[in-house]
């Protein structure tokens, strides 16, 4: 279909030829815009939204090939279709013109029918390009909206994480939380349960990305200090983290899908230094004593939400003053370098053992940096969480 308002620039120094072409073009229902040479035509291309240029080959100041080169060098948001009028079928000239970016040729003095066909071809291409541009614009806007939503979701998720700038009950707690995508399938919490007891947990939902993050955020909302207190402390204040994990397992085993999560949670008594913990498929954390010897805590346990009949056990470990517990999601040990070698537990242990020297607050970032280096700067493929808890002297 002809678009009546389409502008066509006619660059031709021969006045009669120009008048003739303009009349033909106007007769076809387009709006012709005459230019006496290449420079004038280039100005019009810049100033109007014309998307078709019909140009002669030889013109003063700037010829047709020069004009085409200049048009191709412009930074326009639309394509300009260039048709060149030639007197001959000289292959060399045509080659040069094609290289310069000419789209089509027409012989001077050709029939109206040919002109009409050429313009119609150009119009079709222009319409096609503008449809594509529209579609790209829509997709881009849509993508931006998704990204914005995800960033908002990520901000909401970060809000759920504990603020760790201060010491909690004489414990120094530091963390790193690095989603592999914008949102994370990890979650952790650390809070006072009673005047003497600190509760903490780390969760890693199987898989990663948006799907896993929905569950991790749900867990973050569920496991509040109140929930933790009710489920993991008996009436006499005796810790039973396995009871809380069993409760979560019952709740999350109900669904039919394969979603599940691993968890490590515990209660630390600030007076005695007794750590009661439950490991549910989460990697064993390192306990580092004040001499810098690291020991892996726990020998495993069923993940949560995988097997409804699973039972969970409590473990106990002594947490001395100046000792540090370092919890890492499996993204750390499984991170592979460009040679596909995993970072592994031994490298993690080596960093963990520096804790008495550098302090727990620097451990999470040190591990993140080591992993970034290990992966030569490539982003991690799984969500990473590191939590370091150091028991300080109580005044």
């Amino acid at each position, binding site marked *: 279909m002809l678009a009546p308002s389409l502008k066509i620039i006619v660059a031709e120094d021969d006045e009669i030829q120009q008048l003739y072409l303009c009349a033909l073009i106007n007769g076809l229902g387009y709006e012709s815009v005459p230019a006496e040479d290449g420079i004038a035509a280039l100005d019009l291309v810049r100033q109007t939204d014309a998307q078709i240029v019909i140009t002669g080959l030889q013109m003063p100041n700037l010829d047709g090939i020069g004009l085409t080169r200049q048009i191709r060098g412009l930074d326009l948001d639309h394509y300009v279709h260039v048709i060149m009028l030639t007197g001959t079928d000289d292959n060399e000239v045509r080659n040069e013109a094609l290289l310069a970016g000419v789209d089509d040729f027409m012989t001077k003095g050709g029939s109206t029918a040919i002109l009409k066909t050429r313009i119609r071809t150009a119009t079709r291409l222009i319409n096609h390009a503008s449809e594509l541009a529209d579609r790209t614009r829509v997709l881009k806007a849509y993508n931006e909206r998704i990204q914005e939503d995800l960033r908002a979701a990520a901000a909401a998720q970060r809000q759920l994480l504990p603020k760790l700038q201060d010491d909690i009950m004489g414990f120094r707690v530091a963390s790193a939380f690095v989603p592999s995508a914008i949102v994370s399938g990890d979650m952790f919490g650390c809070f006072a349960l009673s005047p003497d007891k600190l509760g903490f947990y780390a969760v890693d939902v199987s*898989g990663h990305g948006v799907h896993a993050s929905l569950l991790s955020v749900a867990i973050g909302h569920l496991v509040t200090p109140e929930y933790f207190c009710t489920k993991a402390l008996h009436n006499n204040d005796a810790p039973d983290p396995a009871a809380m994990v069993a409760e979560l397992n019952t709740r999350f085993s109900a669904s039919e899908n*394969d979603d599940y999560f691993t968890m490590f949670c515990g209660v630390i008594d600030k007076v005695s230094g007794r750590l009661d913990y439950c490991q549910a498929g989460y990697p064993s954390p390192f306990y580092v004593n004040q001499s810098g010897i690291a020991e892996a805590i726990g020998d495993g346990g069923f993940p949560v939400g995988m097997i409804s009949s699973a039972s969970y056990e409590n473990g106990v470990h002594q947490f001395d003053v100046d000792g540090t517990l370092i919890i890492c999601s499996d993204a750390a040990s499984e991170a592979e370098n460009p040679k596909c070698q*995993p970072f592994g537990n031994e490298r993690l242990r080596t960093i963990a053992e520096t804790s008495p020297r550098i302090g727990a607050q620097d451990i999470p970032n040190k591990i993140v940096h080591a992993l970034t280096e290990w992966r030569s700067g490539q982003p991690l493929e799984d969500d990473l969480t590191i939590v370091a808890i150091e028991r300080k002297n109580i005044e």
Partner: protein
Amino acid sequence: MIYTTEYSSEITIIRPGVERLTAVNAKAFKDEMTALIDDGSAHLIVDFKDVTFLDSSGLGALVGILKRVGNRGDLAVSGLRPDVEQMFRICRMDRVFTIYNDVETAAQTMSESL
């Protein structure tokens, strides 16, 4: 992706056909295994000899398959490499699956119990 071998008329041996069973291919693995079970295979051995890495999604798929087999038969695993073995151990899957050192032992033991 999976390769199956009939050990006997009742026992099917499956090799996952990937080096890494992860979030990337766990669903395809589960779907193919499910199709196999729905076709009537009930005594299955998944041989992990050629699998170097199994992530949480891979493990989730495997447990899903185990649930699918249910009481109709059994699902054993064999040939766990150290990293895969550690994943099984830390998640206590050694108490859920029967684990054999190699597929031959698995097949022989399974056929004797039938």
